[in-house]
């Protein structure tokens, strides 16, 4: 026989068993402990609605074991209780109701101040539904989209009929059954017979897709219904939704209503009728529904002795002839007694009450629509409710003592206290007492809460002649059922890495890669300091294909660039480039790049790697807003780029080209279209690393052969490719900013000490008016170059440290590194004005001295890069 492992021991199960039915057959009666008072909780609803059977299954907490099919070797544990759920020392809290009234955590442990953090830790350890697994990696879920005309949620009789009728009306439909397979948990009898007949009809229809073992998590605006299945998340986009989720049996409130042995009719019937497990030896039953009569017959057939039956007068003439014990027509359950499990039940009728010894109390006293999904939908969104889910909520007399909310352990006296404290409508009663906020989301207790609020409101109206609050239902929100975080996250946080055409070459070369600006980029190919040396002393290449690259063309292209950038562009000759800042309307620096004039009304623009996507949107936006006739072509994906940098850069290229690239042909701040190793390139002179450099922009598919040719030819000069780690120091020595790392969102060109990048004499450019206004104000913050003395041995650790003057923070270090060529620690940072000026001497948080220094630190005349 197959078996699962329950708390370390093997428990056999039979085909078709749920975890709960197998454990019940094995004799288990305490399925969990209540969250607050640690009361024993037994199998109760049998339909996956209440919290009583929640256990940890294969490491996953809060699993409804009453609807979880057994699998060989499955590991099952109860989660509540210390040291165990069976012998729980924390049950002492059940005797401390007076010390822990509803909302006690809002009122206690306030003084002294350290009390609450301690108390919170204790409370958190004593409550909850189990611990999340810490070592299990989240399983990847397949995300799947379905577009259907009709989505039917619910695999019961109403759902099957709705799916069949939808097809008859000419629509395709998807039928979702979230209780295992269709009809799987229905006890034998006329209801199951009807199920089977309808199921056969529906399965024969090609236009119906039946999805089983999936759960509808919610109904979202749109319409959009996510379905969680085993390892998959299906997003259904239907035209119409039919909610046929049925009803759950009503949770009755009376003293002792949460004792193990108190069970709803469907649970008892499923145990006896489906799984062949006798739910108890001696039972008292309370029946007020037609469905309850079927459960009663199933109970009798399973061999349970019924000692008493409380039945409604409407059903009295339809009762089985024998085996009902003492029949109490019009009677109701008054209270239940017991210790670790049910021992007796008191039935009452007007002027009459009697105690019956029993170990099982079966309740079928009414139905509560399972309509949470329907209530999530916006009005008029094509959601209809059918079957029992559309039925009226049964409202019984409210106010009897007992457990109202099984999930949160809220009792009727808790609601009464909250009412007396002034919480006098359904929503704030819910928030204060947490009733309906547990795993069942009010499925069991929502009716009792509404009923309580309505009846107390009516009492108040009678006594004080004040308006009674409406008996509102609490708001239904997704998820409708417990769902794992990995399911919720499926497909949501997708990391989409961009790769240049050289990615495979970098991997083959052993590069250490990381994400930067949305791209996977090499940090280093092994020894970043040696890569740095190659740039400064010899020659190096770097993959800069990540730069944003755009062609701007059309009759108004000249006007666009003139309006977009704060520097002059009209004086830029064809074949020349200019460094440009991109400002927003507030005058803040958003990005920077290089603008090249191609001639004939055509321009070529590069942006930072991370800004390519939003740059295209911004360019197109301004074309539209300014009403210009300009075409914007994003070439970021189309073109790669390799920066050849170092004193021997020209020598290296000379080996691979026939074109002239001397300083006269391709000067600094110039570009030329040349052919390198057979690959047509746009060679742009750039100065980011502070050495002679040519950026070779080329067709993406030719990138690997160009890189390989440069790499091989460069060996003659000791070429080593460099990555971002070397670039960090190279650009820092030149005082070049990394936008985002070195800058703040409200930095202006003046704050960045770059007024030279702005020509305020231009009639108009984006951000000019804001700069004019700010120009009349005193400068309160600026960017600075820094030289350090002392501090941590690893200068890079200075990054992020505060800058202090007389112990007061006035700024922050944004970049720092030790420069080998300068033989000192240098950095960049920002600082605010102190007493109207900017001090030259500062200290850092770690005690280093910092002196404000001019930049560039390296080759301030720029002779090397202009060579």
């Amino acid at each position, binding site marked *: 026989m197959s078996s699962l492992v329950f708390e370390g021991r093997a428990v056999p199960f039979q085909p078709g068993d749920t975890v709960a039915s197998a454990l019940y057959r094995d004799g288990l009666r305490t399925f969990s402990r209540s969250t607050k008072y640690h009361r024993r909780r037994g199998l109760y609803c049998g339909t996956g609605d209440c919290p009583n059977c929640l256990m940890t299954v294969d490491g996953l907490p809060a699993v409804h074991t009453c609807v979880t099919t057994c699998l060989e070797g499955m590991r099952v544990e109860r989660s509540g209780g210390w040291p165990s759920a069976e012998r729980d020392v924390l049950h002492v809290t059940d005797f401390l109701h007076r010390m822990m009234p509803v909302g006690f955590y809002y009122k206690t442990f306030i003084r002294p101040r350290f009390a609450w953090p301690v108390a919170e830790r204790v409370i958190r350890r004593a409550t909850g539904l189990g611990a999340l697994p810490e070592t299990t990696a989240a399983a990847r879920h397949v995300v799947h*989209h379905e577009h259907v005309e009709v989505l039917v949620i619910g695999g019961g009789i109403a759902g099957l009929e709705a799916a069949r009728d939808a097809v008859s009306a000419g629509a395709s439909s998807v039928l979702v059954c979230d209780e295992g397979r269709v009809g799987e948990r229905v006890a034998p009898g006329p209801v199951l017979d009807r199920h089977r007949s309808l199921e056969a009809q529906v399965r024969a229809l090609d236009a119906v897709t039946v999805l089983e073992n999936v759960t509808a998590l919610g109904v979202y605006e749109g319409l959009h219904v996510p379905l969680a299945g085993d390892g998959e998340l299906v997003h259904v986009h239907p035209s119409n939704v039919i909610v046929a989720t049925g009803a759950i049996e009503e949770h009755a409130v009376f003293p002792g209503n949460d004792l193990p042995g108190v069970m709803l009719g469907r649970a008892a019937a499923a145990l006896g009728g489906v799984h062949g497990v006798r739910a108890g030896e001696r039972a008292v039953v309370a029946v007020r529904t037609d469905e309850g009569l079927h459960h009663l017959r199933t109970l009798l057939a399973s061999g349970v002795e019924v000692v008493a039956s409380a039945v409604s007068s409407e059903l009295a003439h339809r009762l089985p002839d024998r085996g009902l014990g003492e029949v109490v027509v019009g009677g109701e359950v008054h209270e239940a007694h017991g210790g670790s499990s049910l021992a007796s039940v008191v039935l009452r009728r007007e002027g009459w009450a009697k105690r019956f010894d029993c170990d099982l109390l079966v309740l079928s006293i009414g139905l509560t629509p399972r309509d949470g999904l329907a209530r999530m939908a916006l009005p008029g969104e094509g959601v209809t409710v059918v079957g029992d889910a559309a039925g009226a909520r049964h409202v019984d007399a409210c106010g009897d003592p007992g457990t109202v909310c099984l999930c949160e352990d809220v009792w009727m006296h808790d609601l009464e206290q909250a009412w007396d404290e002034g919480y006098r409508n359904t929503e704030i009663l819910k928030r204060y007492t947490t009733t309906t906020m547990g795993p069942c989301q009010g499925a069991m207790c929502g009716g009792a809460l509404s009923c309580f609020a309505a009846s107390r409101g009516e009492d108040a109206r009678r006594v004080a002649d004040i308006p009674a609050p409406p008996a509102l239902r609490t708001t239904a929100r997704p998820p409708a059922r417990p769902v794992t975080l990995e399911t919720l996250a499926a497909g949501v946080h997708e990391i989409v890495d961009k790769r240049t055409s050289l990615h495979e070459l970098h991997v083959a070369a052993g590069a250490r890669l990381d994400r930067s600006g949305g791209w996977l980029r090499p940090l280093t190919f092994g020894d970043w300091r040696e890569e740095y040396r190659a740039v400064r002393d010899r020659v190096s290449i770097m993959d800069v294909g990540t730069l944003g690259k755009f062609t701007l063309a059309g009759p108004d292209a000249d006007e666009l660039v003139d309006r977009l950038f704060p520097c002059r562009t009209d004086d830029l000759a064809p074949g020349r480039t200019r460094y440009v800042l991109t400002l927003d309307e507030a005058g803040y620096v958003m990005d920077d790049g290089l603008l090249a004039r191609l001639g004939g009304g055509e321009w070529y623009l590069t942006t930072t790697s991370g800004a390519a996507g939003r740059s295209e949107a911004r360019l197109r936006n301004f074309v539209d807003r300014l009403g210009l006739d300009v075409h914007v072509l994003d070439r970021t994906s189309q073109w790669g780029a390799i920066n050849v940098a170092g004193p021997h850069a020209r020598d290296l290229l000379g080996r691979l080209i026939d074109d002239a690239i001397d300083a006269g042909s391709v000067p600094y701040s110039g570009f030329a279209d040349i052919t390198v190793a057979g690959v047509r390139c746009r060679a742009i002179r750039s100065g980011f690393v502070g050495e002679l450099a040519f950026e070779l922009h080329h067709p*993406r598919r030719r990138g690997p052969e160009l890189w390989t040719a440069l790499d091989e030819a460069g060996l003659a000069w000791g070429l080593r490719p460099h990555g971002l780690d070397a670039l960090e120091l190279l650009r820092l020595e030149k005082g070049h900013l990394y936008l985002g790392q070195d800058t703040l969102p409200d930095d202006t060109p003046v704050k960045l000490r770059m007024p030279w990048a702005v020509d305020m004499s231009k009639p108009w450019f984006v951000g000019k008016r804001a700069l004019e206004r700010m120009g009349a104000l005193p400068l309160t913050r600026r960017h600075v170059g820094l030289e350090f003395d002392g501090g941590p041995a690893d200068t890079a650790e200075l990054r992020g440290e505060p800058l202090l003057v007389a112990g007061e923070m006035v700024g922050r270090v944004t970049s720092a590194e030790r420069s080998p060529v300068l033989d000192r620690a240098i950095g960049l940072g920002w600082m605010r004005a102190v007493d109207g000026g900017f001090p030259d001497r500062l200290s850092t948080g770690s005690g280093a001295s910092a002196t404000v220094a001019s930049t560039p630190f390296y080759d301030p005349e720029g002779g090397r890069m202009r060579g």
Partner: protein
Amino acid sequence: MAELRVELPSVVALLAPSEVCERIEAPGGATLFRVGPREVMVVGRADVSGIRAAVGEGPLIDDVSDGWAAFVIEGADAHEAFARLSELEPPARGWMQGTVAGAAARVLVEPRRITILVPAMLAAHVEDRIRVDGAEVLAP
């Protein structure tokens, strides 16, 4: 099942006034994607000179094939494989644009065949998503 083919597509971009975009006709063996009011993508057998001859001087016309990668999913389960990548609802025949596997894509839909065009810089990611999420419906 369905088969996946990775192809290097031939793509020409035409950026022109909307009236020019309106009148351009697909060259033989090519498909036109009107991706914006002033932008057309010509995918398939097309060359810059032929299109320039058709529309005249002025519009920006360029071979941008290097910027794109194509994934052709063909077979009975082509739509099933696509449903695992995007919430776009494919028409019976035609093309659409939107997010596929997290990438901005243009999608050509034919009976039993779906062609997904994505920027080449995202090709590795998209191919990985297609193969992992479509493992059950794609031929190995």
